């Protein structure tokens, strides 16, 4: 077998090799170009020569299987893959700029910036998880940002695809990943839990906001296994000005037990974008680590090494949706608002991890000047929030499953659609406008939301409308 010699200026399958960007333990990265393609491109060539680590081959095979199946803004666009018999390679879109790794000297970053990074990375993970992939190596050097701000995830060599054979599963006795970011369950060989990525992101957020790695850098098996029983020092202990809500979010991400973390990356993103509505539990106030008795109990817990059977990933994610309900407090009749509540109740009863975002649009006039205070001096926004919470009260939802949002907008349908887009909403419940005169004059909000929303929309009516009406 004659391999084409890889060097500057050489051409493989019409790709010209322009520059060596990186020479790593597993692969070499080249900047390449091709006539007719303007998109900047990168060629990844695995090190598969005699005597090289077989992990490099299997991990490259995994990436070769997964990358062509991914799409969207949060991953580099796949271009081509080379035949193993001639020269194995993968060509993908080259994202301009540096990875998050370059920012390590600047740590700790301001809290607001960390929260913003977390939000963007969580949105990328949500998109990836919905494409059946768990990254399993989330760390600063695998994250970049597009000029437009969206996070891009790199390197799927350790990833797990829910609908493809997991070639890495049996390959190595020792867990693989990056020591500081690896979740407890990954250490035990579990590769099919999307919440492992939430753990890694939690470690990243802790590190970026405090400058300290929560579980250290140890790469020895014992050093890594400590995270199975030893919780990290609460960030507020390290930095007295650490926001309580951020500590709540970060510590929840790095819970030892996956079930105690956020059920989905979308729910984490939701919390990061609404800090004022984060439910502050005991986590948010902690200044000390768990007492020794707790640590010892975890240390000698036989359940620790148990293998857990998880439902398929798509089912896991869809069992924890974010449902938005648009409640019209002005025109909506009591009957309609009751019907909306019943519809919401049914969803929440079947899905215990679902959360509800109650929306109300405070309509602004197109030409009139608006005042947030009405004639009586009440703050309209606060009044609406109170009314929304009052509407939701009979649902008896725990605090962390319920949020209320008043959107100020000229066009209610657009405001709802923007909220749905920005918050990764899975389903919208909205009432149909009953007054036909208003519907004719103002158009139907629900029809527009139903037509344009990127998710399921349920239109709710107070009852069966009479045919002769």
């Amino acid at each position: 077998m004659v391999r084409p010699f890889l060097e500057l200026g050489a051409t493989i399958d019409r790709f010209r090799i322009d520059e060596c960007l990186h020479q790593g333990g597993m692969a070499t990265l080249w900047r390449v170009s091709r006539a007719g393609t303007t998109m900047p491109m990168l060629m990844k060539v695995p090190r598969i020569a005699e005597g090289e680590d077989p992990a490099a081959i299997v991990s490259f095979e995994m990436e070769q299987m997964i990358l062509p199946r991914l799409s969207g803004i949060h991953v580099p666009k796949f271009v081509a893959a080379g035949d193993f018999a001639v020269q194995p390679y993968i060509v993908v879109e080259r994202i301009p700029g540096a990875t998050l790794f370059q920012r390590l000297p600047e740590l700790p970053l301001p809290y607001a910036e960390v929260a913003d990074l977390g939000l963007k990375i969580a949105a990328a993970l949500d998109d990836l998880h919905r494409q059946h992939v768990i990254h399993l190596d989330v760390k600063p050097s695998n994250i970049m940002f597009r000029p437009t701000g969206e996070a891009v995830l790199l390197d799927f060599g350790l990833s797990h695809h829910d609908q493809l054979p997991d070639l890495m599963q049996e390959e190595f006795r020792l867990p693989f990943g990056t020591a500081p970011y690896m979740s407890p369950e990954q250490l035990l060989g579990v590769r099919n839990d999307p919440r492992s990525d939430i753990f890694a992101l939690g470690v990243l957020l802790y590190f970026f906001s405090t400058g300290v790695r929560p579980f250290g850098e140890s790469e020895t098996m014992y050093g890594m296994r400590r995270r199975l029983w030893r919780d990290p020092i609460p960030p507020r202990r390290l930095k007295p000005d650490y926001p309580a809500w951020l500590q709540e979010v970060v510590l929840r991400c790095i819970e030892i037990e996956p079930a105690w973390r956020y059920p989905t990356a979308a729910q984490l993103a939701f919390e990061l974008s609404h800090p004022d509505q984060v439910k502050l539990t005991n986590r948010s106030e902690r200044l000390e680590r768990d007492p020794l008795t707790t640590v010892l109990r975890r240390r000698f817990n036989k359940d620790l090494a148990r293998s857990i059977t998880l439902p398929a990933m798509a089912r896991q994610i869809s069992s924890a949706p974010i449902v938005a309900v648009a409640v019209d407090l002005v025109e909506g009749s009591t009957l309609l608002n009751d019907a909306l509540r019943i519809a919401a109740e049914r969803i929440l009863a079947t899905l215990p991890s679902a959360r509800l975002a109650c929306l109300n649009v405070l309509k602004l006039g197109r030409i009139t000047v608006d005042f947030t205070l009405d004639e009586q001096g009440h703050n309209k926004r606060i009044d609406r929030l109170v009314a929304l919470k009052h509407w939701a009260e009979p649902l008896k939802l725990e605090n962390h499953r319920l949020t209320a949002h008043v959107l100020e907008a000229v066009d209610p349908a657009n405001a709802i659609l923007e909220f749905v887009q920005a918050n990764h909403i899975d389903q919208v419940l909205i009432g149909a406008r009953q007054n036909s005169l208003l519907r004719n004059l103002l158009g139907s909000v629900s029809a527009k939301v139903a037509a344009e929303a990127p998710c399921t929309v349920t239109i709710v009516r107070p009852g069966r409308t009479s045919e002769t009406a």
Partner: protein
Amino acid sequence: MLIAMFADIHANRQAFRACLAQASDFGAEQNVFLGDYVGYGADPEWTVTTVMDLVEKGARAVLGNHDGAVSNPRERLNVEAQTAMEWTRGELGSAERRFLEGLPLTLDDGERLYVHSEASSPKSWRYVTSIDAAARSIIATTAQITICGHVHRPALYSMSVTGKITAFTPKTGSAIQLLAGPGRRWLAVLGSVGQPRDGNPAASYAMLDTERRELTYCRAPYDVEEAATRIRKNGLPTWFADRLLVGE
């Protein structure tokens, strides 16, 4: 080329017809049959003549243990399968019996090997239900891809350059790229067309796109009630009818 592959049809006319129709809609250019055309089901004659016709037109076929038992009374089957076999022998004409007798145990397609049970000893009719059994079959052949049936439950095994085997339960309709990396080998166990036993009563088969090296496991829903009724009407063990309805 797009190859449709069918295993363990077991004289289930309704299931077989549904699979052939679906595969043809998907653009199948060649059919490969992996054995066990008879046994359990109530339409052995129709099934065998249909396979014969297709083989005449270029399809490929290998022998299954039930097919071998038609002319070989010493072939071991369980008690109920034995009952069905006695009935089947009275249904098939001489042309069909000769066709079955003439089928090869394996077919080698260059990089692909087709065999009913597994490759290490095709005549022993061993089941590939574990990583060890998969390893034994993969090691016994030089083919990069081995395709078999016999188990009635879809599974995909893969061996890496280091000799480690991974087992995977394929998802319906999701194309899997059978990588051709150094040392990478594949063993695809097809589900059953006429007697699925993975809890899903729909008929099971698979499609292989040889250019893209993509394997897709497919399911075709069919008139299970009718197939079950035919089994009962012909005095075959009712257990064969009952298990069709639940796919177990």
